């Protein structure tokens, strides 16, 4: 019934062009059209944070945006956090080393939120970290190791700069 709309979106630096129906969320576009399945669908109604991506520079929930709204915009997904050769980036490695994952379902969202935090605050306090991941729900870990992983990543990133 509804017309499709042609959009082009920069995803992790790659231009993706496709037609979408208006009701497709950015989350579904990323997963089903762009094949970027790292972004997870949790609640699909804006409460869990699993679908977090960086949209035009800011962390947002991709389930609460329509794909058509991403036309002409840039999106960074969790895939964008790995090194150019596909190996885990510093933040991802820290999550691994600090045993921050159990089932892993929430982790793409956690990583994106943590990345956004560290991008504007190289030495976040415990409160800063809690605030940054306050919109990400994890049913497994109890958050402690996730927080430790973010602290570890912050330290490693600072050391790398020295």
């Amino acid at each position, binding site marked *: 019934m509804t017309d499709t709309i042609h959009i082009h979106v920069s995803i992790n630096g790659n231009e993706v062009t496709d037609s979408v129906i*208006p009701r497709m*969320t950015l989350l579904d576009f990323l997963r089903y059209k762009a094949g970027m399945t790292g972004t997870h669908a949790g609640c699909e109604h804006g409460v869990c944070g699993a679908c977090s991506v960086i949209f035009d520079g*800011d962390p947002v929930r991709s389930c*609460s945006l329509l794909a058509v709204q991403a036309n002409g915009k840039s999106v960074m997904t969790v895939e964008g956090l790995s090194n150019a050769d596909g190996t885990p980036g510093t933040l991802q490695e820290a999550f691994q080393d600090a045993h921050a994952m159990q089932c892993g379902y929430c982790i793409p969202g956690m990583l994106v939120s943590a990345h956004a935090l560290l991008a504007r605050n190289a030495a976040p306090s415990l409160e800063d970290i809690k605030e940054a991941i306050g919109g990400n729900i994890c049913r497994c870990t109890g958050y402690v190791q996730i927080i430790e992983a973010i602290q570890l990543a912050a330290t490693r990133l600072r050391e790398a700069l020295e």
Partner: protein
Amino acid sequence: MKPAPFNYALAKSIDEATSYLADGNGEAIVLAGGQTLVPMLSMRLARPELVIDINGVDELFGIEETDASVIIKACTRQVTALNSEIVKSRVPLLHKAMHFVGHFQTRNRGTIGGSVAHSDPAAEIPLAALALDSEVELRNVNGSRRVAMADYLVGPLMTAREPDELLVAVHLPAIVPGVTTATSFHEVSERHGDFAVVAVAAQLTFDGAICTKAAVAFGGVDHTPVRIPEFETRLIGQTLAYGVPDAALDLIADGINPGSDQHASANYRRRVARTLANRAVSEAAVDARSGA
């Protein structure tokens, strides 16, 4: 959890958005930040024929100030309001309220106008706007009008906005220079960033230690955020820094009409409203004294 089909229109100006609304015959809905609307579409609680995206309307973004008020355009992101020096210095109550609104990710998209347009009875932004005696500016193809918050809030998720009207701005009276003004915002919610179970927004003015004007709004305890004139009147002429007199607090229970739900019972809400009102008012009074 997939939205029902709808058509999509990207408006480039207020005029374009209002003419889409006029053509929509009540079946069109405005998409601002999408933090409520897109989930409502996904849950099929909203099934509009047309979604009008106003994120491309430049004239709906920004914060302006006049001598007497701060004007926040509808599509201004919540994060922008939270970080605005104008908001912080001239409408400090809204600044305090913004800390309780959603999360980092939702504030980056969520808008001031969207929250006021949706008017959840437990949302913080309409609550602060009511406490401040703000006005909502609505526009349709024929012109614009301004409605006082108290008249604008009609019921749960119901407002005085007509289906063909676009909320274009919220006008918030600024604090008056030279008058000792103190504000306080308190809420109880299940998790940080959730809608409030109960929230209280207070703005008081003082002459020395004596309260000369009081505005206290309650959220989560009625069909809309509410003010209780009898309660506010009882605060005038008092010092309040050591707590609100019981005779005044006793007036709260009759001024609100809380419901029971999975989050809390009506009785609990009544007690929390009383406790938070006492806390907010006395905190404001202490701040006023210490010149904070």
